[in-house]
């Protein structure tokens, strides 16, 4: 599922709004206690993020696949796009990796993609126990512009909006998943722009 770009934040009770954290999208597959991470342009993501190997222990069901964002947190706990780039480029292991799950694709060995997003999301929250390294992201129903204001103050420059009634779609998401840009508050001590998404990563 690939998000559709929209002009800016909006309010709509049919959508769940979340932060578009400055990280990289990652599909996490967990089977028999083993994690596999799919990150665009990175062949061996588990080797780059060995700290996340314990993620399966936070899951209540085996044979599960999550859709989410991989972040590197700096010493202050803020997501740091530069540190993430260093990791992806194989330049050491700075910072602390974290995984923010947003959607559930498989659970207990079965695909849940045909369920509406609000069902998948509720399911995700029951099977992923929040931990130090992985959690379900905070979602806000309807209040896109309010969340955008809060994110701007945190220096985050994107808003994710997922349609509560939509199935998981392969390819372009259409209205099911939208990305709205946010203008972060000034001054920005560190640009947390989604460089990760716009600059080439592994190539």
């Amino acid at each position, binding site marked *: 599922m690939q998000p559709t770009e*929209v002009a800016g934040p909006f309010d709509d009770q049919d959508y769940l709004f979340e932060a578009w954290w400055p990280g990289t999208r990652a599909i996490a597959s967990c089977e028999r206690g083993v994690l596999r991470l799919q990150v665009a342009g990175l062949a061996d993501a588990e080797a780059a993020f060995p700290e996340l190997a314990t993620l399966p222990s936070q899951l209540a069901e085996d044979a599960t696949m999550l859709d989410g964002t991989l972040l590197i947190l700096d010493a202050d706990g803020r997501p740091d796009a530069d540190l993430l780039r260093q990791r992806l480029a194989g330049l050491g292991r700075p910072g602390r990796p974290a995984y923010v799950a947003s959607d559930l694709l498989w659970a207990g060995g079965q695909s849940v993609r045909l369920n509406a997003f609000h069902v998948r999301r509720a399911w995700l929250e029951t099977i992923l126990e929040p931990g130090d390294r992985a959690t379900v992201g905070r979602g806000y129903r309807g209040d*896109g512009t*309010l969340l955008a204001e809060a994110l701007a103050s945190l220096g985050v420059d994107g808003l994710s909006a997922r349609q509560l009634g939509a199935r998981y779609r392969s390819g372009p998401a259409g209205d099911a998943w939208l990305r709205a840009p946010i203008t972060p508050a000034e001054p*920005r001590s560190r640009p947390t722009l989604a460089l990760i998404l*716009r600059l080439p990563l592994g190539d």
Partner: protein
Amino acid sequence: MWRGAIQFGLVTIPVKLYLATESTSIGFNMLHADCLNRIQMKIYCPHHDAVVPRSDTVRGYEWSKGRYVVMTDAEMDAVPLKTVRAIEIEMFVDAKREAHEAQFVKQAYYLEPDPMGAKAFELLRQVLADQGKTAICKIVLKDREQLAALNPFDTTMLLTTLHWPDEVRSHTELNLPTAGITVKPAERAMAEQLIASMTGEFSPADYRDDYRAALMSVIEAKVGGEEPVPAQRVEPTKIGDLMAALEASVAAAREARRSAAAESAGDAAVTPSSDTADADQRPARRRRSA
């Protein structure tokens, strides 16, 4: 302190040199753990199996493996050096970084003119500043001829000793990006944007040696008989902290809206047109396409 003269052409300006920087690192002495007395370093000759007094030592230069030529003090003094007691200006160059190898600096010195050379000193300082020039010179310091750059610096001049070209290692053996790398215009624009967003004025006063301060506070505590406070171990940051920060930020944004709405309601009592203004500020209800 070094005393000598700047020389170029027929001009001689008597000056003194003062170190422009000082080391603030904390020094330790080596003590015997049992008695806490200072350890003495003895000069030892393995051939005679004996401790040798410093006066019985000579300078030796290893010209091939295990073979030395001895240089006496008299021979050292007899080495012809043109730049003894002089800062001899060889040439003037544009004061651009690329114009010389000033990035390979050793030590910086402030210059102070003798009263009789004050006018010529100020003249040279002003002309270097106005014309954007650096004087490249030679000077003998600590028995060694050194290459140096002379630059105007506030109301004085700064002499910066430089490494000789043969002391500077070549960088060509490093694994550096080559011409094979192509950069797309969009990538370059993004990199330029990133650099621009982090561009500012460098203010040295904003930086300090935190390690030295922390070490000094431990030493002072021990001198005062207190138990040093161990450094606070930073708890590893967690993803839950980030979510908590987000929730706090959302709560703050919600509160700000509530306050704005309350103010707006107050204004409505006295401003008939405030309904329209409120409607304009209401958030969009519909999604707009990009």
